[in-house]
């Protein structure tokens, strides 16, 4: 299950997709609005926690509480930024720009990425 490409399987209509996202990420309705682009995507989406060592991916969105999202965003985890997984695990180690950042399990789950 961990690595399912859920967006491919999700129902086509927007309401269904929203529900799928809510179910899959256990997030609140209000936070789904920030997923914007993610819902339209058709490529290989995943959460950061699903990345393998050495993989690089682009961030699509952050589905976390506003406080966490703000902290992550200010540290550079914004839409379009590239992250490289250096070491998987909890916490994992990623490179974003020239910085190495350790990310705990919750943060890893809340970052949606598009693998390139």
């Amino acid at each position, binding site marked *: 299950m961990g690595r399912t490409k859920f967006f491919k399987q999700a129902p086509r209509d927007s309401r269904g997709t929203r529900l799928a996202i809510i179910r899959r990420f256990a997030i609140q309705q209000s936070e789904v609005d920030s997923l914007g682009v993610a819902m339209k995507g058709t490529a290989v989406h995943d959460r950061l926690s699903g990345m393998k060592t050495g993989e690089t991916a682009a961030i699509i969105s952050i589905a976390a509480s506003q*406080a966490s999202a703000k902290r992550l965003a200010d540290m550079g985890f914004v839409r379009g930024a590239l992250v490289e997984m250096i070491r998987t695990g909890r916490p994992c180690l990623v490179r974003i720009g020239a910085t190495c950042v350790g990310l705990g399990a919750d943060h890893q789950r809340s970052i949606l990425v598009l693998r390139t």
Partner: protein
Amino acid sequence: MSVALVGNPNTGKSTLFNALTGYRQRIGNYPGTTVERRAGFLRNVNGRAPIEVVDLPGAYSLAARAADEAIVLDVLLGRGGEDRRPDLIISVVDAANLGRNLFFCTQLLELGVPLVVAMNMMDLAESSGVRINAPALAEELGVLVVPVVATKQIGIDALEKAIIDSLDAPCSDHCPSFPVCVCAELDGLCHSLADGGAGEHHRASRIEAMQTLLDPGGYHESRLVKRCGRGLAEELAERRRRIVSAGESVAEVEARVRYAWIERVLPHVVTRVRPRRRSRSEVADRLLTHRVFGLAVFLLMMGMCFQSVYAWASPIMDAIDGAQKALGGFFTEVIPAGALQSLVVSGVVAGVGAVLAFLPQILILFLFLAILEDCGYMARTAFLLDRWMGLFGLNGKSFIPLLSSFACAVPGIMSTRSIEDRRDRFVTILIAPLMSCSARLPVYVLLIGAFIPATPLLGGLIGLQSATLIAMYFVGAAVAIPVALILKRTVLKGPAQSFLMELPTYKWPSPRIVLYRMYEQGKAFCVSAGTLIFAVAIVVWALGYYPHPAAIAQAHLVEREAAAQAGVSAEALNTRLAEIGRNEAGEYLRQSFLGRMGLWIEPAVKPLGWDWRIGTAAIASFPAREVVVATMGTIYNLGGEQDETSTGLRATLRGATWPDGRPVYNVAVALSIMVFFALCCQCGATLATIKREMHSWAWPVLTFTYMTVLAYVAALATYQIAIRLV
């Protein structure tokens, strides 16, 4: 005139500060906090009035989460009083990591204060294979950009000149533009804040309004809502709703806009001349952050640290012991017998000397921690131990304060300011004093040296003595786990926060910084030995010396004469006279105020295997636990038990007896004392720091109570179990 150094953590602000001020600095505190305010004067002002330079704590964003970030904000927004607001900001950015650093820089640009960018670590940027075009960046930002290498003092003159040139320059108006919906809400908010009342609101500038609006539940919001009431909270919620319905995310829009601006600018500034290679730091991290291997390296390093604390310091310690004895002997010669001689020899030399003998150990411990900190390994320990900190209900960030608490709980507690979650921070503060700080080291080293045999273990890899020392360090940490869990479940309930932390690139530790830190800590220890411990030693001496009734002297004089007339050999007479002398001293001590107090509390400490002297020493050590060693030195010296042939306090303890002649100390008693001191909170400085950090006396009282109860119970259990086993 004052200028402030502002930037992300580890960008070299402190190094730059030292370069600009020439190591002449005053360290004070921000009002009402324990946050250090490091200030100095610019070396070179070209004949202008002196310009003060202030080094602010590191921050990632103006949206403060942690307590030290809040300080940065308060200073930059002039909340500590308008005169404290800097006249110019030196934005320190790491050239090797320009993208992330420019985020904060563009926020600073909007503060409406003249700004100069100090682009530090140019050497690292170059060696990582990029070329940086500073004038292009200056063009984009609309301010002066000076490339510097703080550690090699390159570019400092140019920076000084840029500072002076920019002081009166107009502020830059280059800044990223925000989506229309955000701008509209911002204008509205600025307007209502300015209308809403008098005083500070007028100064609430646009950037402050932005941080309030775009950081739900953040520091700015809670601060303003407290001031302006619920109405503001509702207004903010309404405005945020409108931003969301316009299709923007409140929490991310600022980062998105700024990083988009940076993405656009960077290609003009940074050119890669060599393809990116895996940095040496990353290679090292492959090993050092490995779940198994990294942890093994960490444990090995800690073991080595404790082993060397014990092995290297011993010869120096013996030398200090010897010097102390010689000094005592010298004063006995030159000062006539009486109260003054007793004060100097028993009170000052024996008391303070006993504590100073531990300076070498403490310096070695601080040396280790300073090296770990400066080379960047400390952040890795937080990363490695994040899962284990889960046991405490905390995350890896709490590990660094706890590790520093092994040196001293006071800086440990102060460094909790980087923990964002208030509850996590409080739990960390409350368990930090359980970590075995260096002030416990004298107690351990004294008792281990005297009562634990030096049997080699594991084929000579480690001695039984070092193993006991390590075990003592573990006791506190092991007890901290249930304590933290209980606190997390009751008074400070809340979910564990997920780990998020930058791991800075590894660097060779700078000998200058490491030695400077070691020197500062050593100085603090000596100052406390010279003041607090000195004072307690004198009080303890006075209580142990007076009332000094003459009747005792008379009784023993009679005995002496009787011995002299018994007609035995000269040698036997000498032995007899020495014995009488000891009895006399012991009698004086028992009759003294201290002795009477001690006998009164003896029933309470007897179950721990302690005699009244240990009990008294433990109580007298309330202001600082290392005092216990000084107090014991004084008590035994007063009691005449520190005889001529013994080397220092260790041998004296071995010879101490109950009135019926049984030795007071054995392994069980030594363990019980050590366990007590491992867990008790006999440290006035720690309690005062907790009060200052948590703004209430309830917390230090709670800390002291729980730790004392814990210490007593654990010491009781230790003694009762050990006495049956050994």
